[in-house]
């Protein structure tokens, strides 16, 4: 099953629609609540990252018999140093973003923690594509 969602820059209010929609399907499939939570948390974090840092993008979710693959692709500044970004607490978020309760530097580490496979392709000044996989069994 395939789902596509759009990401709008700076729109924190509407963020979370993708994860809600995916959550509904996973509940229908009877996926273990632990895996549902991991998927939803990772997807939400990735979406928030794109909303906070990029100019816009898309989310593609594919669910099959054994796994969920989520691709969050944005057009944005890219990540200059992935190793740093993977560290808990390291953040380049603007003061405005932090004021909204985001940008604590937990995004990528949290995604890493909640997925079985994480791939980050980033190009400075072009954008970032985060591919996350959660295995259901």
């Amino acid at each position, binding site marked *: *099953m395939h789902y596509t969602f759009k990401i709008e820059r700076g729109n924190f209010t509407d963020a*979370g629609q993708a*994860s*809600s929609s995916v*959550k*509904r*399907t996973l*509940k*229908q*499939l*009877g*996926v273990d*609540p*632990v895996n*549902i*939570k991991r998927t*939803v*948390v990772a997807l*939400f974090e990735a979406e928030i990252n794109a909303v906070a840092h990029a100019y816009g993008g898309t989310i593609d979710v594919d*669910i099959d*018999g054994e796994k969920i693959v989520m691709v969050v692709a944005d057009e944005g500044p890219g990540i200059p140093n992935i190793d740093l970004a993977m560290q808990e607490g390291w953040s380049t978020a603007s003061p405005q973003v932090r004021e909204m309760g985001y940008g604590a530097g937990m995004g990528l580490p949290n995604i890493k923690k909640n997925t079985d496979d994480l791939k980050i392709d980033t190009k400075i000044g072009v954008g970032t594509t985060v591919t996350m996989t959660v295995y*259901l069994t």
Partner: protein
Amino acid sequence: MPTGEIYFRHSLRVNDYLCQGCTTCMRTCPTAAIRIRGGKAVISDNKCVDCGECMKACPHKAIYIKQDDFGLIENYRYRVCLVPTTFIGQFDTKYKTKAIYSCLLKLGFTHIYEVEHEVPRMMELYNRYMEDHPEISTFISPYCPAVTRLIQVRFPSLVDNVIHVRAPLELASRVIVKRLMDDGARRESIGVFYVTPCAAKIAAVKYPVSGKETYVSGVINMDFLYNKVLLMLHDSDKNAQPINHALTARDVMWPLAGGEAVNFKGYQYAVDGLQNVLNFLEKLEDEAVDAPGLVEMRICDQGCVGGVLTTNDRFVARKRLEYRARLFERLENSKLRESSNEDNTLTPEWIKDMEIPDIKPRSIYKLNDNYAEAFKMAERMKKIEKALPGVNCSACGAPSCAALAEDIVRGDANADTCVFINPLSKTSKDAMNRIWGDRIKSNKEEQ
């Protein structure tokens, strides 16, 4: 309509004679538990959480709560009226609490016991549970039975966040039974009757999540007793004797939204009203909200004074309880309570009795136990949903197009019930298109 095992039973009933099939209840239900069949509302056992929203919404008073026969109290020598303070909140503050209680005694009860008398012990049970589970960050109060059931069916991943302690009325009934037995009464001669403000509490007594024995012999609807007492209060008696009670301001406020959470250490949150509860649980499930501490949740707006069986306006009832709370403060009831000989300890037996061993997840979303089969059904459901018009007209007897799609894949409905897919004639098709634009789609998917 429901197939397979039935694990919930309910106190909400539909009166087929009064029901007009108007769909109002069906659209209000938070778990999509209602369908129209044969022109009447039908409630699905496993989906209903007894929140009572359908009953509040019904314009024809066709949904009712089955209560026990009041005459049942005659079967007992000791007849205890187990009453929540929500009940006294229904009455004008010009009536003294003891005058209200004296009416209950005149109606045939021999003892009055307030559920909120157990607040100190309930707090200890909650605190024990929270201390015993340091691995849980957000605890959800088990106070509102409809919330616990809602979590079971819609937010199964949160069942472990609910404090596994039974309802205060269970503790209160045990305490009063023990007290009477200590005074020489035989167990079988004691009948405990709970006065309920809502459907959920009846269901919690009759069909408890814990599956354990109840000490409550019967449940009386609050509106029924209110009417009886109000008639008698007019010749209210000056000789009414106060009952030994020393409820404190804190106890009186307990059933109100915010009245419970405020008593606990650390962070607490008070969420009331169905929509607020749903939104909060949704966020909690997604970890989109960080809420360490205790969350008090009440399905009814303003808490129990908003219950479907209360008679007076919830805001007025709230004010009245606040007034009585202040009065009790002036009377220094808390000092009175501390100095009374009353034993506020918890016996090991009560601690064990009040435990809920397991709150089972009962997802209403799961399409099939077999993943591959569920996957096929979900795929098909997604396609059907796309083919449906999405206006949620309810003419098919389901609350929304999504619900109809689900009913179709579960084999409980056919696509031809959709008036958009299967318009009666060319004229009706044209008429529909005038209103909704070109939404009538082909029903290829189903053929």
